C-alpha cells in the first residue's frame, strides 16, 4: 500500500503530557490522525492489532511512533526493541519523546535503533515549537520507504 505517514501513535502514560502533545500536533496540523495509548502493552496491542485494537482497518500501521521511555509495565525501551526486532514494524520511525536527559537513556535508545531522541522542553512555547518542528520534519520533510504489502 502506499505508505501514508499521516497516522501518529503516541505512547504516553502522563495524561497531561499526552493532552499537551495532542494539542501541539493538532496545532501543527500535518497529521491526519493521532492515536494515544498509555502503556507499553497497549502500544504493542495496537501495533499487532490485538484485543481492542484487533480491527486492522480502524487501527492501521502508524506512520510515526512517539514513544515515552518511562512507562508502567513494559517500558519504552522494551517497546522499541519489539518494534525494531519485528520485520514488519522495524521501518516505522520511532521518536523517543521524554523528559529524561539521562545519557544511558539516550544511549540505550539509539542502541535499539530509535530514529530520534527528543526531550520535552519545559515551557509552553518551547514545547509547542518543538512538537511543531517534529511534526514538520517527520510529516513533511522526511521521505519514508515504500512498503509493499
Amino acid at each position: 500500500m502506499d505508505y501514508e505517514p499521516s497516522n501518529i501513535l503516541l505512547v504516553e502514560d502522563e495524561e497531561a503530557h499526552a493532552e499537551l502533545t495532542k494539542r501541539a500536533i493538532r496545532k501543527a496540523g500535518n497529521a491526519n490522525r493521532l492515536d494515544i495509548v498509555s502503556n507499553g502493552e497497549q502500544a504493542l496491542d495496537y501495533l499487532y492489532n490485538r484485543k481492542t485494537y484487533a480491527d486492522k482497518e480502524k487501527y492501521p500501521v502508524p506512520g510515526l511512533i512517539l514513544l515515552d521511555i518511562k512507562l508502567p509495565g513494559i517500558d519504552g525501551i522494551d517497546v522499541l526493541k519489539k518494534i525494531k526486532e519485528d520485520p514488519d514494524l522495524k521501518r516505522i520511525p520511532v521518536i523517543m519523546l521524554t523528559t529524561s536527559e539521562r545519557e544511558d537513556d539516550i544511549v540505550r535508545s539509539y542502541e535499539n535503533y530509535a530514529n530520534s531522541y527528543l526531550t520535552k522542553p519545559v515551557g509552553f512555547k518551547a514545547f509547542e515549537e518543538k512538537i511543531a518542528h517534529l511534526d514538520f520534519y517527520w510529516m513533511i520533510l522526511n521521505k519514508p520507504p515504500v512498503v509493499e504489502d
Partner: protein
Amino acid sequence: MAYFRKFFPLIAFLIFGSGAVLLWQNQNKHKQRLVVRHMETSSEQIRIRVEGLMNARMASLEILADRWVERTPPDFSQKRFLEFAENFYTHYPGFTRINWIDPEGVVRWVFPRKSNEDFIGNMVYEHLNSRVWDAFQEAGKHLKYVATPCTELIQGGLGFHTFRPLIYTGRVQGYLNGVFQVKRVMDTCLAKNILTEFWISVYEADRRIYTNEEQSPSNAGKRNLHVLREIRFPGKTWQLELSPKAALYPSGLVRNPWLLAFGMFISAILALLLHFLNHRMQMYRQARDHALHEVSERKRAQEALKKNEKKLEALLKELAAKNAELETFIFSVSHDLKTPIVTIEGFMGALREDFGNLIPEDCERYLNYIGDATQKMEILINDLLELSHIGRLTVKKSEFPLADLMEEVIAMLQPQIEAKGVQITVSEDLPLVYGEKKRLAQVIENLLSNAIKYIGKENPSPQIEVGLQEQDDQKVIFVKDNGIGIEKAYFEKIFQVFQRLPSAKKIEQGTGIGLAIVKRVIQYHGGKVWLKSEPGKGATFFFTLKNKEA
C-alpha cells in the same frame, strides 16, 4: 638466670681468689720444703762434724794413752805429757784443757799451763762437782773411758770432762783428763753460713747446752719449723735442733703477703672486668630486647595502620558508592520533577492561549505567581541536575586558552552585564588550562554571574577584574569585584548546596547551588577555590587548576 648473672662476678672473684690463696700457700709450702731440706742437710752436716770432731778428740786421747805406754820402761814424765798435750791441743782444736790426774784424784799436770796453774795439786772433787767425781770414780773402778754430763766449767761456760784411765802392768797409773767447752766444740764445727742461717740449739738430756740464739730461749718452742737430730759420740748423746732464722724463713707466716695481695688484686680486677662485661652484656641485651620490642611494636602499629587503611579504603568505597547512589537518586528525582513542570507550564500556556480573554485580572496575577514559582523550580532542578552531573560525566579533558573561554562566557552574559553597567577587565596573561571545557565554562559563568548579581545597586562604577597571580609556585586565577562583599563567617558556607547569604536573598534570586557547582568542578579538576572579602569592599574568588602533567 639473670639473677645468677648478677652474682657471677662475685662467684668469679671467689674462685679466682681461692685459686690465688691456694697458689700462694702452695708456693709457701714449696719454700718450706726447700727450707726443711736445707735444714736437714745442714743438721746432718753439723752432726757429722761434731761426731767426727769428738771421735777424733777421743781418739787423740786414746793415741796419747797408747803412745805414753808404748816405751819400755814407760816414761810418765811431766815433760813428755806436756809435749803430747801441746801437740794435741794445737793440732786438734776443741780441747779446753788436757790434764793428768794421779790415781788418787789429784790434778798433777795441766795444759795449757797458762791461767790454769791454780788447778795443779787440787783434788778433782774439790773443784769439780759431784758428777765429775762420780765419773772419775767410775773410770777408776771399771778401768774404762768415761765422759761426764755437761756442767758449769770453772773456766766458764758449759762443758764436760773425759777420763781415760792409763793402765800399765795391771795398775792404774793415772788418768788423762780432757776438758771440752761445748761452745768451743760447736764453734769449731759450725760453718759461718750455718750460724747465720739457723737458730741452733744442742740439748743433753733435755738441758740446753748450746745455742747461738741471742734472744730469749722461749722463742724456740714457738717455732713450727725445726729439725731434730741426734749426735752420738763415745759416752754422749746430744739432741741437735735447727730452725731457720728470719733471713732464711721469716718467722710465723713466712708467706709473702704481697703475693697474696697481688693475687687478690688480680682476682678483684678480673671480677671487676667480668662485672663490667656483664653489665655491658646486660645493657646490650636490654638494647637488643628494646630494639626487638620496638620493631615488633612498629610492626604491630604498621599492621594496625594497614588494617585501618583497608577499613578506611572500604569506608571510602562505601562512601563513594553511597555518594554515587545519592547522585543517581538526585538525578532521577530531578528528572521526575521535570515531568510535572512540563505539565504546569504547558497548561498555563494553553490556558492563556485558549482562554486568554476570559481570564480575569486577578486570576492572571495568580497565574503569574504560579508561573514564577514554576520557573524557579525549573532553575533549581536544572542546577541540581548539573551538580549531580559533575564527576559522572566523563567528557574528555583538553588543553585550551582560558582567555577564549572567558570571551565566550562574557559574550553569553552580555545582557546581564549591560543591564548592570558593569565594566569587566580581563588580564591578557591568562594561561592555558587543562580540563573539561563545558564544566570550566560553568565555573567562569557562575563566578561572573555572581559578581554581576551582587555588584550592588548603588555602585557608582561597578567593576569586575579577571586575572592571574602566582602564589607558592602555583597559578591562581582570580575574579575580583567591587560589589557588596561577604562576611568572613560565610566564607565556607557559601560553597555548600542551598546556602545563600541573607543579604543575597534580598537582592537577587538564585538557587544556592552555583558556588557548590564551582567548588565541585574545581575539585573534580584537582584544584582549590577560596575567597577574600569584606562586607562593602567587594569579593575576590580564587581558584587553581592542576597542570596537564599532574
